[in-house]
């Protein structure tokens, strides 16, 4: 440190009054004053101007303090009970506790304000662009296709189309034919009638024939007939064969519907066989395909359209229900 002299002694005096001098500096200052006694008074003046610390305090500290989150959310027990009550999140003990608290008028008023914190949605605020959100194109497409085309098609079919549809295959379907067979010789107590129908490649009826073999024994007791099997005799590609077994029966017995749609009328001299071509299978098949088609359509478009078939025990369709978004149609089949 530099030595105290007449050019820098004031700095030393100031440090001395503020007790900032080291011990060695203090000793040097004392030695300096001993050499310059006239400066002692000046040092005394420094000491006199030293200001004592004040005890004045700022009283509005609280207003300056920023609240922490925890201080913000300090919820009193009463407040908790009020909110719990509004939120319907209160148990019996808490209810009792709240009731007790609400005897205080001030708290009663506070609770009333809590009730007012329940918000009500303003129903005047509406989203006005709903049309933009709706899937118009698809709905239109759906309406056109399903509600008009499908509906019209199905309705037309219900009214006219079924016959039209089936008639279009008329050439391929053999019309019902009644057969009459004369009895030649009864064989045993089991009667048998065989029919063979022959079709060409185009499914048109080409030939129908019935050949009876081995008619030998007459059952005198029961007068029951026997007809042996027939054979398809044609070099055609397709054929169907029908074999009907008739149990024991007496003269004049009438057996109907013993095999699908065949009626047999037996007399001692003849057997009449009424054979109906099973048109319904074609019809049932159509509706089964229609049902599948509509189901696929529904899957593809995700739309409300359905075709439900109701089946009888024998597998034939009793009723058809077509359900679209805008209408419904039902067709019942009266089958004998």
């Amino acid at each position: 440190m530099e030595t105290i002299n007449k050019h820098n002694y004031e700095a030393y005096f100031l440090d001395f009054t503020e007790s900032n001098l080291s011990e060695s500096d203090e000793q040097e200052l004392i030695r300096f004053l001993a050499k310059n006694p006239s400066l002692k008074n000046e040092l005394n003046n420094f000491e006199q101007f030293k200001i004592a610390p004040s005890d004045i305090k700022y009283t509005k500290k609280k207003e300056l303090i920023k609240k922490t989150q925890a201080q913000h959310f300090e919820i009193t027990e009463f407040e908790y009970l009020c909110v719990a009550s509004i939120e319907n999140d209160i148990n019996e003990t808490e209810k009792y506790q709240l009731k007790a608290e609400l005897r205080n008028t001030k708290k009663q008023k506070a609770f009333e304000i809590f009730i007012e914190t329940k918000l009500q949605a303003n129903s005047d605020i509406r989203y006005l662009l709903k049309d933009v959100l709706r899937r118009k194109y698809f709905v239109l497409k759906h309406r056109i296709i399903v509600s008009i085309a499908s509906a019209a098609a199905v309705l037309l079919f219900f009214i006219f189309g079924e016959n039209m549809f089936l008639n279009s295959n008329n050439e391929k379907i053999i019309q019902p034919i009644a057969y009459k067979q004369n009895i030649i010789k009864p064989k045993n107590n089991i009667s048998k009638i065989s029919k063979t129908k022959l079709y060409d490649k185009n499914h048109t009826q080409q030939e129908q024939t019935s050949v009876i073999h081995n008619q030998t024994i007459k059952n005198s007791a029961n007068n029951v007939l026997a007809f042996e099997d027939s054979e398809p005799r044609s070099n055609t590609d397709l054929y169907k064969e029908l074999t009907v077994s008739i149990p024991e029966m007496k003269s004049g017995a009438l057996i109907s519907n013993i095999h699908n749609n065949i009626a047999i009328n037996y007399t001692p001299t003849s057997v009449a066989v009424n054979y109906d071509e099973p048109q319904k299978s074609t019809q049932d098949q159509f509706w089964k395909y229609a049902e599948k088609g509509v189901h696929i359509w529904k899957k593809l478009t995700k739309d409300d359209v359905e075709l439900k078939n109701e089946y009888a025990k024998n597998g034939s369709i009793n009723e058809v229900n077509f359900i679209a978004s805008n209408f419904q149609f039902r067709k019942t089949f009266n089958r004998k």
Partner: protein
Amino acid sequence: MTINEYNKSVEAYSDHIYRFILKNIKNENTAQDIVQDSYEKLWVNRKPVYFTKVKSYLFTTAYRTMIDIIRKQKRVSLTDDYSVFETHEENDYSDINEVLHAAIEKLPEIQRSVILLRDYEGYSYKEIADITNLNESQVKVYIYRARVYLKNYIGKIENLV
């Protein structure tokens, strides 16, 4: 979900979602965009969404889209700190409802969302938790805090009046 159900959801919930978003962000155009965006997402994902869950799906989507937009715009801090939202305005309210809605605007974002879902839509804590991606306890705490804040706000205004 079928097209029909989708269109039903437009009728049934678009107003609700719009109100909820508008109350949160106070911007009609953005609110409309968010509603449209939510329904677009629903349309794209309609197959696995059941009609019974569609409202929740829409609110969840709308809420998350809104949060994304807010974050991008950095208009509102997503904190639970009132100091950000406390502004001093002239209080010129004609009824308690106005006071209440003014108070809602001053709530922190997350508290505002949960209380709107609770009161406007009547959602349970669990449902709100699913929509906002919080847990049930957090939802409950936010709702309690929001109610106390609203009560204090209304109380102050009533005292001033």
